[in-house]
Every structure is written in structure tokens, then in C-alpha cells.
């Protein structure tokens, strides 16, 4: 068989004409019964054997092909009365409005003018010929402009009350959704029957149809009113045999049977001369069944239901939506060699690794070709079989035959028969490359390659440092795992997608994988200059790393020997690394800009020795560009980055464990003295607020430009109350120990902020909804506990209590009101930005950077002459810049500074 290459130039959409439907049909379908008494499908029924074979061993009577090869064939139903195609109701409506009810012409003025006296039109109004000329000129080149012209034509023509061609008076067409049309005549509303609609549409000449947006060669307007209904092949609506031997039919088959039954009843009624009312009722029923056959979610009509009460899944439902054919089966589909389970943390794994339960490892397989180098290992895997890990599930012989090891009695014999050329589908073992993914997959690092580490348990285990790219936490998150099957896929995953190769994000070039939370607390506590370690302690914390080398002389030799935390960190730094910069803790009273810094908040690393300053979020945090971690990875490579995270970062948490790290109520409890100061402060600010309210009531309040007096008052009050909370926070900050663990977390950037501490220790402050004080609830007051029109802080959501002291019921109510807004915002933002992202990805997914740096579409259209207009790959750049001169100088001669 010769294969010729064909290139698809375009796709032509159109409506099927009744003739076409009959031509492609293998026969009319008339019988509402499907099976005869002995259970064979009846010829002329919806399961007519001519419609295709779905049983193995049968041959198609039409094409002679067996199941799987026979594509299936269409049949047709001759509808006794025409019905509206529910998918084209809008087109029918527009067309009826724009064309003459009598002659079928488009109600646009002819160029030579209308002969009708009653016809009124303005001189500049579009003429029929002109519209046609314009359409012809722009149709191919500017299809969007043509669409606008057609809309204009429809609108202009619909306005005419008299046909400019035959002078017939026109009536207003009304639609009762979903598919009933009426004409507003003198005598009242008159229903337009589909027969009448079809007749009117038939009269429209091809030229006029074109101006209404139809391409008459492929879709005539009257084809939107069905007289013949195609019956799709059985292959798209196969029947299934359930356990009890009963046959269950597809929803489409059920629907087609309904259509045939009603069609036959309608035919019978007409033939027997039944009253018009009965005929029309049956006709309506036929219309309902045909409409719901196309779409069973039409607003305004009840969905057709199965006997069980379940709505039928008809044509439109099969296609649209997330689980429809396009999104659910074509854009994305279920795949083999994948697993999904809950993730849980394991700081002892490498960032490159993923812990896989043995149960999963025994189901997922990797095809490995037998060679003389691996034959013994693979023989053992075959002997172990499917139930003993590390075993194998299948063996594929060189002739392509697949042997299922579940059913092999003597696996030893099979193992002995293995020779190079066989393929063994062996269990997942340590070191195998797999892809790991967490939805929503918003950026490419939502899916990275990991090395398998088979572990007991039922969850996937993940190093905590890899949480940020996946946006994963361990409150029940599940993740997917995929096993690449070919050597190429495995190599590609390893070389491009491995976690260590994606530490720097392509978004801005900074490390997306880096320290967070306890890693930062641990790093700070270890590196702060007051930390001294005995030799044993140094050994203990280094024990979790793979550090091999001399520990060196302790920094403190006498009176006792002590190592410092900075000394431990320096063991992991490259011997030519230089860095100067401020730490996160360098702020407020502890800010430093030079090396002469008493607070240990200015970091100096020279020749790989951490001389001064602490490691906190600024130095090693995730998503911190231009940090120590960033420069280390950029200058010493991904592998070194991975080494740091697998070793030094583990040392940090080991130190935190050894020292102990917790928080207590004492960390956020302020003294009585501070409390009384806060009370005094509250009094002062309340007076200020009262002053504003008195001024407002007396009309003496100075309005803020551009705001009403009331808005100005609200602004003044909000400002005052904000100052109150800040001042209360300051009092608390002065009162609390700035080196307690809660403060350590906030200052180092590990977790929480100064505001969190203020709210825990001092006061929650103003609760807002949409940026304003809470004012809605009862009439002119939020809660019945307040006087009407009370504008005082406590009546409008100011919370004087702290989390430490606890909130009173009213404060709790306000706090819940403010909190609800946050929850709603999150929910709305997630869904909206998700949809936006989907649309953007679909629009941009085919754009790519060519080898010459140009950005082009798949058609070769140039989007950018050089990527990003500067050719810089953010992942390999110095935080978006092509290079960073200051960093280069620092790197080379920074130690001399």
C-alpha cells in the first residue's frame, strides 16, 4: 500500500442537506424495537447490523471489515414533520427577521430604489448590491470585518417593516426560547410551525443567504430545519453487556429510539386523520426529543432522563466541558504508568529524590532490554515475579510476544531462557527517573524529574525544599507520578527536568528552590555569632551531611575549645567565593550597611569563609534573587546547589533540632506595664477619633480633596486607628525579647511578620471589608448591641484585644467578617486566574524560540526578532540582566575590599 502525504489546508464546516444525509445513509431506520425475540438486532432499527459491527468475529455487511476496522456507517430517520435544529435557533431567528416573509429576499433597499410606496429608508442606508460588493471584497482577506458587515446587514434589514422588493408588510418575529417562533400579527401572536419556517428559508436566494453569513454551497438556511435526521454508527454508541447478561444501550441509542417512536406515532396520527391538536402535541414531542438528542442541557426545557432519573448524556454533553471529548479525551487523557497518592515530607531525601511506596513500585514498570551486563539482575527480577520487589511484571520476547509473569508457573525456567534482546518490564527501583507533578500545573516546574527511592509506607515522600515550585504542602496534597518508558524520554527527563536543573526559575533567574521556615530559623541560630559548639556538637550536626574532610582547628582555642556556627558553614563554601551584603535581620535598630556591624546583620564572605553576618532569608531563602544561594548556584553549578541543599541545609535543621526550637505564650505575652501603656495609648487615640466626629457633626471637618465629608471622616478615623495599632505594636516590640523564637522567625523571614506579632501580643486593630470599616448589618448599625449611627471604633469593627488576650464576642464577629472577605477573594481569584491562564496558554502554546533566537509561530510568523528583545534567558541571566558587573567585580576582587 502506498502512502501519500497530504497536507490539510483548511477545514470547511457546513450543514448537512437532507439529500446528503440520505446519500451517506446505509438505510432508513424506522423500527423503534431494537432486538427481536431471539435477541438479534432488528434490521431497520437503531442497531441495524449495517450501521457497523461492535461484536468481535462479525463482519460488516456494508464494508466487509471486522470489528475495529469497520468505521461504522450512518443511517437516517425520515422525520414526518420538520423540526428546528436547536443548535441553529439564533441563525434561524436572525434570518427570519432579516428576510421578507413573502418573497424571502433580504430586506435591504435595492440600488435602483424600491418601487414600494410604504418602504422608507434613508439615503445613506446600505443597499443590497453595495453590501454584496463589500462582502465579496473583504470576505477572504478580512473575515472578522466581514462578520461585522453581516451583523450590520442583519440589523438594518430587520428594521424594515415593508419588503423593498415585493412590498409585503412584515410582522415582528418573536422567539420563545428555546425553539418556538411567533409572528406578531394584527390578530395576535401566531405560532410559526417549522414547516412554515422552512418554506420561508427555502425562498431566500443564495446571494442574500451569503449576506446573512451562510455559505450556500455548504449550508443553506433551510437545512437548519431538519427533515431527515442522521443516525450515527453504532461504533460511537456501543451497547454493553452487563454481568447479568442484560444488554445496556448507550444514551444516544435510547434517544434515537425515542425519536423513532414519536416519529412513528406522529405518522400514524396524521395518516389516521387525528385532530390537529394531537398532531401538534406529538410534533412538539418530536421537536423536544430531537432537541435533547443534540443537547440535553437546554435552558427552559426539562432534560431527558433515563429510567433511573439520571439525565441522558447526549451529543453536546459528550463534547463540551472539562470531561468532554476535547478537554477530557483529546487535549488530555488518562495515561498508563502513572500513580497518584498523598505526599508527605522527608528531609532526609535528596531534593532530586522522591520516595515511592513499595506497593506503587511493584505496579509501575520500566522496560529494560536484556544485555550481557544486566542479564543476571533481570533474571533475578523475573524470578522475583510481580509480587516480590524488586521483581518484574512482564517479559517481552524478541518476537514481540508479551508474557505476563502472573501466569507463568515456572519463573526460574523463564529467567534461565532470557537472552540479550528480551525486554523485561521490571519494577521501579532506586535511581529510576520519574516525572512528578502537582496540579494546577501553572508553570513548567510544576512537573520535574526525580530519582526514585523505594520506601515503605503509602505516601510519596518529598524533600521540603522542593515544595515552592510545586506549591505543595502536606495538609493532604496529592501528587502524580509518571514513569517515562523509552530511553530517549528517560534521558530527556534526566537532563532537562531533574530537580537540580530547575533550582533557578525561568521566571526571574532566582532560586525557586531554597530555604524556608525551619531551615531559615536553623541557619540563623547556627550562624549567629553567639553560637559556639563543642567538638561533639559539631560532629553531631555534621553527621547528617556527606561532608568528608578535616574539621580544622576550633575557632576558640582557650579557655575551652569551641567551633563556631560560621566555621561549620564555611566548610561547605567554595574556597574562592566572595560576598558582601545585608541580611534580612538588618532592619530598624539592627540595620547595618558596612562590615563594622555590632548586630551580625551584614554578611561578609571572603575566600569561602563566612566572617560576619547571619544566614537568613536574604542569604539562602527561596525565591530570593541575587542572594548568596543564587550566586553560589550560578557560579558553581546546579550540582553544587543540590549538594548544598542535601547537606548544608540538613545541618541547619539538625542544629535547630539539637538546640530546640519552639514558641511559648511567654514569647507573645507583654508585661502589665506595657498593657497600661497600651491602654493610655488607646485613650489618646479615642480622643482624637472623637474630635474628628465632633468636628464632622459640627460641619467643621476639613474634607480631603476629592472626597465627601463622610469619606474624609472615615479616612481620618482609619488613619488614626492604624497609628494606634502601630504604636501598640511598637510598645509590644519594646517589651518583648527580640531574641525569643517568635521574633527570630519574624526577623529572619522564616515565618510570620512583625504585624503577626503585633496582633498576637498587642491588638488586632481595624477589621475591614473592601478596605472600609464594617458598616453593614442592621439598619444604621452593624449589630443590635450598638446605638443607631454609632461611628465609634468599637461599633465599626475595631478590635482592641489581641489573640493572646482573646476576643470578645463582638470583636470575634468583626474578625470573622473581615476574614470572610479574604476567603472569598482567594476562591474567586483562583478560579478567575486559572481560567485566564488556560486561555493564555492555549493562545501562546505554539509560539517558540527558534535556534536563531527568533520567536515565531508554527506558521513561521515572526513575533520577536530576538527573544524578549534582548535574547536573555532569565534562567541563565543575572536576575534578568545579561551580566552583573558588580557581581563580577565582587567575585574576583571582593576579598580585598
Amino acid at each position, binding site marked *: 500500500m502506498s502512502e501519500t502525504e497530504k497536507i490539510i489546508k483548511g477545514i470547511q464546516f457546513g450543514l448537512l442537506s437532507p439529500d446528503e444525509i440520505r446519500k451517506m445513509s446505509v438505510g432508513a431506520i424506522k423500527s423503534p424495537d431494537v432486538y427481536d425475540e431471539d435477541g438479534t438486532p432488528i434490521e431497520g432499527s437503531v442497531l441495524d447490523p449495517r450501521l457497523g459491527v461492535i461484536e468481535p468475529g462479525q463482519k460488516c455487511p456494508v464494508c466487509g471489515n471486522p470489528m475495529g476496522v469497520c468505521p461504522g456507517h450512518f443511517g437516517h430517520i425520515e422525520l414526518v414533520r420538520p423540526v428546528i435544529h436547536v443548535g441553529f435557533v439564533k441563525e434561524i431567528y436572525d434570518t427570519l427577521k432579516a428576510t421578507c416573509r413573502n418573497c424571502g429576499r433580504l430586506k435591504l433597499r435595492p440600488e435602483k430604489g424600491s418601487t414600494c410606496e410604504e418602504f422608507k429608508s434613508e439615503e445613506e442606508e446600505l443597499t443590497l448590491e453595495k453590501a454584496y460588493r463589500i462582502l465579496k471584497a473583504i470576505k477572504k482577506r478580512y473575515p472578522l470585518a466581514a462578520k461585522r458587515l453581516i451583523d450590520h446587514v442583519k440589523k438594518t434589514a430587520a428594521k424594515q417593516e415593508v419588503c423593498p422588493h415585493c412590498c409585503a408588510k412584515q410582522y415582528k418575529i418573536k422567539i420563545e426560547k428555546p425553539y418556538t417562533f411567533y409572528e406578531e400579527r394584527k390578530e395576535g401572536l401566531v405560532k410559526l410551525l417549522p414547516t412554515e419556517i422552512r418554506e420561508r428559508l427555502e425562498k431566500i436566494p443564495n446571494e442574500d443567504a451569503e449576506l446573512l453569513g451562510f455559505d450556500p454551497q455548504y449550508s443553506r438556511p433551510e437545512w437548519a430545519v431538519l427533515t431527515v435526521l442522521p443516525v450515527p454508527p453504532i461504533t460511537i454508541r456501543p451497547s454493553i453487556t452487563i454481568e447479568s447478561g442484560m444488554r445496556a444501550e448507550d444514551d444516544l441509542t435510547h434517544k434515537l429510539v425515542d425519536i423513532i417512536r414519536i416519529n412513528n406515532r406522529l405518522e400514524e396520527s396524521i395518516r389516521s386523520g387525528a385532530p390537529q391538536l394531537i398532531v401538534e402535541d406529538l410534533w412538539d414531542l418530536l421537536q423536544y426529543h430531537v432537541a435533547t438528542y443534540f443537547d440535553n442541557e437546554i435552558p427552559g426545557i426539562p432534560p431527558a432522563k433515563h429510567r433511573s432519573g439520571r439525565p441522558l448524556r447526549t451529543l453536546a454533553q459528550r463534547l463540551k466541558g472539562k470531561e468532554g471529548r476535547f478537554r477530557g479525551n483529546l487535549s488530555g487523557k488518562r495515561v498508563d504508568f502513572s500513580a497518584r497518592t498523598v505526599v508527605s515530607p522527608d528531609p532526609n531525601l535528596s531534593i532530586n529524590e522522591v520516595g515511592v511506596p513499595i506497593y506503587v513500585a511493584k505496579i509501575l514498570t520500566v522496560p529494560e532490554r536484556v544485555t550481557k551486563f544486566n542479564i543476571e539482575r533481570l533474571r533475578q527480577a523475573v524470578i522475583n515475579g510481580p509480587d516480590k520487589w524488586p521483581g518484574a511484571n512482564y517479559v517481552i520476547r524478541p518476537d514481540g510476544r508479551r508474557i505476563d509473569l502472573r501466569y507463568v508457573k515456572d519463573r526460574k525456567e523463564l529467567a534461565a531462557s532470557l537472552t540479550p534482546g528480551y525486554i523485561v518490564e521490571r519494577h521501579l527501583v532506586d535511581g529510576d527517573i520519574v516525572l512528578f507533578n502537582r496540579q494546577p500545573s501553572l508553570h513548567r516546574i510544576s512537573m520535574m524529574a526525580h530519582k526514585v527511592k523505594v520506601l515503605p509506607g503509602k505516601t510519596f515522600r518529598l524533600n521540603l525544599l522542593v515544595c515552592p515550585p510545586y506549591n505543595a504542602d502536606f495538609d493532604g496534597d496529592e501528587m502524580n507520578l509518571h514513569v517515562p518508558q523509552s530511553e530517549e524520554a528517560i534521558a530527556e527527563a534526566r537532563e532537562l527536568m531533574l530537580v537540580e536543573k530547575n533550582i533557578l526559575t525561568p521566571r526571574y533567574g532566582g532560586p525557586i528552590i531554597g530555604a524556608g521556615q525551619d531551615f531559615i530559623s536553623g541557619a540563623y541560630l547556627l*550562624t*549567629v*555569632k*553567639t*553560637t*559556639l559548639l563543642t567538638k561533639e556538637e559539631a560532629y553531631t550536626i555534621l553527621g547528617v551531611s556527606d561532608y568528608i574532610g578535616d574539621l580544622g*582547628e576550633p*575557632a*576558640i*582555642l*582557650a*579557655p*575551652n575549645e*569551641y*567551633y*563556631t*556556627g*560560621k*566555621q561549620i558553614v*564555611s566548610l561547605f563554601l567554595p574556597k574562592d567565593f566572595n560576598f558582601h551584603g545585608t541580611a534580612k535581620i538588618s532592619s530598624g535598630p*539592627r540595620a547595618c550597611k*558596612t*562590615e*563594622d556591624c*555590632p*548586630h*551580625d546583620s551584614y554578611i*561578609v564572605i*571572603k*575566600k569561602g*569563609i*563566612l*566572617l*560576619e553576618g547571619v544566614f537568613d532569608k536574604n542569604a539562602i531563602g527561596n525565591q530570593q534573587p541575587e542572594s548568596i544561594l543564587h550566586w553560589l548556584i550560578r557560579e558553581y553549578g546546579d550540582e553544587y546547589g543540590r549538594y548544598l541543599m542535601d547537606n548544608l541545609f540538613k545541618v541547619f535543621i539538625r542544629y535547630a533540632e539539637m538546640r530546640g526550637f519552639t514558641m511559648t505564650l511567654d514569647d507573645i505575652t507583654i508585661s502589665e506595664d506595657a498593657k497600661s501603656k497600651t491602654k493610655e495609648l488607646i485613650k489618646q487615640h479615642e480622643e482624637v477619633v472623637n474630635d474628628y466626629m465632633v468636628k464632622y457633626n459640627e460641619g467643621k471637618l476639613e474634607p480631603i480633596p476629592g472626597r465627601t465629608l463622610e469619606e474624609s471622616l472615615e479616612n481620618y478615623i482609619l488613619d488614626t486607628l492604624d497609628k494606634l495599632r502601630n504604636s501598640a505594636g511598637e510598645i509590644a516590640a519594646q517589651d518583648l*525579647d527580640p*531574641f525569643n523564637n517568635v521574633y527570630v522567625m519574624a526577623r529572619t523571614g522564616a515565618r510570620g511578620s512583625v504585624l503577626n506579632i503585633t496582633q498576637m501580643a498587642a491588638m488586632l486593630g481595624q477589621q475591614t471589608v473592601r478596605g472600609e470599616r464594617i458598616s453593614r448589618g442592621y439598619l444604621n448599625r452593624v449589630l443590635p448591641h450598638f446605638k443607631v449611627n454609632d461611628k465609634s471604633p468599637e461599633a465599626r469593627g475595631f478590635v482592641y484585644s489581641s489573640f493572646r488576650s482573646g476576643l470578645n464576642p463582638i470583636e470575634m464577629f468583626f474578625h470573622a467578617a473581615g476574614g470572610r472577605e479574604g476567603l472569598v477573594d482567594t476562591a474567586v481569584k483562583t478560579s478567575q486566574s486559572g481560567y485566564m491562564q488556560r486561555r493564555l496558554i492555549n493562545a501562546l502554546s505554539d509560539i517558540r524560540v527558534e535556534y536563531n533566537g527568533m520567536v515565531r509561530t508554527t506558521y513561521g510568523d515572526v513575533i520577536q526578532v530576538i527573544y524578549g528583545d534582548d535574547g536573555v534567558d532569565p534562567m541563565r541571566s543575572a536576575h534578568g540582566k545579561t551580566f552583573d558587573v558588580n557581581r563580577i567585580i565582587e567575585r574576583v576582587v571582593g*576579598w*580585598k575590599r
Partner: protein
Amino acid sequence: MPEIEKECKVISKVPGSLKGLKLLNLDCGDITATVDLVQEIDIFDEGNEVTFVVSRDKPNYTPNDFCAHGYLFYEKKSDDAFVSLISLYGLLVKIVSNSGIISSGILNMMDHVYVCIKKLN
């Protein structure tokens, strides 16, 4: 032969800006030194007479002395005096002198040095 060897007096011992940190202020005549100390190595009292040694070679010391090693990593002139910093892998020794340690050629940037403070009596 140590690069710097001075007889000094502990003029004060004040709390540093970090928890558990103390600053030992030494008056050594033409230079003054401020040394970071923490509880584990705090063996000095105000008024102690001490010898302050900065040396490339490891000096002799006893368990009654304070002795550590690190790097000279910073020197800047501020006002009329030079401020030099030695990091004992974190703990800082700040030396204020008229001529500077690097500027006067006694030591070089990033020289590995031993710093010892020995009690005289």
C-alpha cells in the same frame, strides 16, 4: 614574634546588641580593642591587666587565657583613626588604631591570625 603584642587594661565589659553577647573593651595605649565575648569564654573582669596578642603564628597560651583564630578582613579609616576587624569565625575583634594594621604593613587583608588575651596576674 607576634605581629601585635600590647599590655592592656580591661576598661569595661558591656552587653552587646545580641542576646548573650558581651563586649570587652581594652585600652592598650596607642590602640583600643573591642572583643566580642559570650558566656562560655567570658573569663575577664573590669580592671584586669592583660596582654593582647595578634599573631600569624600560634602563640603559647594556657586554659586561663582567651585564645582564638580567624581572619583580618576589614580596615577603613574613619575620622582620624583606622578601624580594623578580625573575625574569629563570627566573633569580632575591633581594633582602633592611628596607623591601621593593614595600612602600616603589619598584616595583610585576609591574613590568618591568632588573637589571644592573656591575664597578666
